[in-house]
């Protein structure tokens, strides 16, 4: 079974500052992948970043990077130089090769203050 936990229901950051969103997960699979999805007010689910569990190197996509701690089953998202357009609900998600199903956490609502 897979579970994903996001313990921060809401976060706030000043424009141009850095913010970190937390996520922990649990899985019995050895082959799995982790994702962060962004859901702005338009409700569209947008893939932000992807991490392969067998890779130790943390994934990076422009201003977005992750801190993947496999032993601790932690997968946090860092947003640098925050922009107003980053304001959204952020979902952490886990995909396992055996279950072939994407499981979401409960989300963190990020507000960006000008």
């Amino acid at each position, binding site marked *: 079974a897979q579970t994903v936990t996001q313990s921060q229901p809401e976060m706030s950051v000043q424009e141009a500052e850095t913010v970190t969103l937390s996520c922990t997960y649990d899985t019995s699979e050895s082959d799995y992948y982790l994702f962060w999805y962004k859901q702005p007010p338009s409700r569209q689910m947008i893939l932000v970043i992807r991490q392969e569990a067998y890779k130790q190197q943390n994934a990076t996509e422009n201003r977005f990077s992750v801190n993947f701690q496999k032993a601790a089953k932690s997968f946090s998202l860092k947003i640098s130089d925050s922009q107003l357009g980053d304001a959204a609900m952020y979902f952490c998600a886990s995909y396992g090769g055996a279950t072939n199903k994407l499981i979401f*956490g409960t989300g963190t609502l990020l507000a960006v203050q000008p």
Partner: protein
Amino acid sequence: AAGVIQSPRHLIKEKRETATLKCYPIPRHDTVYWYQQGPGQDPQFLISFYEKMQSDKGSIPDRFSAQQFSDYHSELNMSSLELGDSALYFCASSLATGEYGYTFGSGTRLTVV
């Protein structure tokens, strides 16, 4: 680039009515997933199809059914609608395995009155 297309975008139905939601996956994607997202909730997996066969089933009520057709589009049929069925319904598609993530459609907002 073509995305996942869902129709309709919005749907209003009365209790006990039937609704049909449609999903057209990205070309060459052979796996389709349906999710339900209630207000303030995370998306909950309903059902998935691979190569036109049901591949997995989640918390989908017996009143709901779905299928994937020969052109890979999928339809979610919802009968005897209840007020609690009001939600955003997402369709997503991927290649055979979802290890590269799913591509989501814009969702269908269903309101049951």
